[in-house]
């Protein structure tokens, strides 16, 4: 068992329209097809298909979330890459901003 587990995860959320998130986070919660998956730094490699739901990520103090419609996530010990599409409401809202 390795001792040098990374302390944070590099989270990248990529949609065909935009690079949505690219930052270091403490934890991510993803809507997998069979239920939510919590990912903390040092997770073992996992490829997962996502369903509809909310992606939540935890920074030092606060949490941020947005809803997505399906996609994929590649989880590595120090990195999480999410390919997804924003849900319709969310896309409208981010257009307004």
């Amino acid at each position, binding site marked *: 068992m390795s001792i040098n587990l990374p302390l944070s995860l590099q989270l990248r959320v990529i949609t065909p329209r935009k690079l949505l998130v690219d930052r270091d986070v403490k934890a991510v919660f993803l809507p997998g097809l069979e239920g939510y998956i919590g990912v903390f730094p040092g997770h073992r*490699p*996992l490829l997962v*298909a996502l369903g509809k739901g909310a992606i939540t990520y935890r920074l030092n103090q606060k949490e941020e979330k947005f809803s997505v419609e399906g996609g994929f996530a590649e*989880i590595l010990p120090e990195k999480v*890459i999410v390919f997804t599409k924003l849900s319709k409401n969310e896309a409208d809202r981010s257009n307004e901003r």
Partner: protein
Amino acid sequence: MPALIDLRKRIRSVKNTQQITQAMKTVATAKLKKVQRTVIEARPYWHSYPNFLSEAAFWAARYEHPLLMKREEKRIEGVIITSDKGLCGAFNSNLLEKALSFFEEKAKQSDIRLVLIGKKAVTFFKKHPFPLDRTYSGKVEKLTPEELKDLAQFLLQLYTFSKTDGVYVVYNEFKSILSPRITIAKILPIEIPENKEAQERLTPDWEPEAGPIFNTLLPLYVENQISHSFFESSAAEHAARMMAMDNATQNAEDLISDLTLVLNKIRQASITKELLEIMTAVEALAKR
């Protein structure tokens, strides 16, 4: 010697044309900015998705998906993306020439069917004997994501049910504002690039199984590739129109200055002539 009035008329009409081209240029610039933003913002996706796909494919090497299977190319489906409107330089004509020669070459060994996007492509291929599957004409700029998705579904079905053995997309890629790059991309079967990085990593878990993942991963890839080429093409179109209209405005400017020079020469010549006539008349009167 052309009459003054004709020259004046001509200058006026060139000026009007110049105003139009200038307005078109401004419009194209504004539209380009908008589309360029979507293209550039979509780039991270284009850089990472193939990589992701190749990693996934490396780990799922034994899994054979119908969209990955190569077959002998007996029937080919071509998708050609052009614009609806002209006045954008050689944007459409270059692309269509290239597409035509490419598919004529392919036609020697295989049956070709085409999907045409854009009025320019539709009128061009009326003269050529390729069977058409679908045409989108007259509302290219307003193609919705749903329609693009529908097109992707159609192509995917053709391929999975072995109605076609290869799908190519021909479009103008937005390389820079100065020059679009004509791209012929093979989107089906999906060719997965080699990935060395993946070999050094731990084998990942899959959730759910590799099969269902690939069932959504691959069609999504194709879908996105189609909408991506569509956006690239529209950015390239606006850039090409901007350049063409800029040139036209410049040319109009040159023409106006040439014509004004001629006009002034003629005007001065006629003034001199009139003066001369008056002088001679005065002289003649004085001698009496």
